[in-house]
């Protein structure tokens, strides 16, 4: 696509429910990143993909968080048994390749998650 697309734009859920957040990167971008942005905080690294593999999952806050990427394209971030502290904006970014090119990250508009 022309840009990084994320869905849903906004999600309100009840505590304990599972949620899935989707990211469709720029076509041809092999690197994909997930970040979490909480109010007043910077961007917290969650996970990145190079192709379909995730070499570094160390940023995932707990085992309730998981992510996958299929076909080297779309990625899904899943949060199980959501907690109120999971409320944040989840940003996805892609780049042509890790460490290559200009190093520029291209971001989506994010998914705002609110856990009641």
């Amino acid at each position, binding site marked *: 696509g022309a840009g990084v697309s994320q869905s849903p734009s906004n999600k309100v859920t009840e505590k304990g429910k599972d949620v899935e957040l989707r990211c469709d990167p720029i076509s041809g971008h092999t*690197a994909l*990143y997930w*970040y979490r942005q909480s109010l*007043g*905080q*910077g*961007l917290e*690294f969650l996970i*990145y993909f*190079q192709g379909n593999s995730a*070499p*570094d999952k160390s940023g995932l806050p707990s085992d309730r968080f998981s992510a996958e990427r299929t076909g080297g394209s779309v990625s899904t971030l899943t949060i199980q048994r959501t907690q109120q502290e999971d409320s944040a*904006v989840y*940003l996805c*970014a892609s780049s042509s390749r*890790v*460490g*290559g090119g*200009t*190093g*520029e*990250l291209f*971001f*989506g*508009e*994010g998914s*705002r998650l609110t856990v009641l």
Partner: protein
Amino acid sequence: AQTVTQSQPEMSVQEAETVTLSCTYDTSESDYYLFWYKQPPSRQMILVIRQEAYKQQNATENRFSVNFQKAAKSFSLKISDSQLGDAAMYFCAYRSASLAYKYIFGTGTRLKVLA
């Protein structure tokens, strides 16, 4: 571990005036990249300007320029002739040359532009 600090949570500037946003970072590496990203209310972050640490010359992009002081580990952003559309959150970011996927972001500075 690398850290990025933006000590100004909020700044204001009069339209057409100049404003400087501060950023300091801590690293033991000699080769790295620094970025300023802008996040308007739409939430989509876009790259404003980029600096390679091995380059002594400060980067410039139209009304945006940086003052890169490698020894002081400082990377400030100057916006000249401020426009209403410059109002946004600005994030400073560091990227290691060795761990090329690892971007460290500061907590951001909210810039208000007054008409």
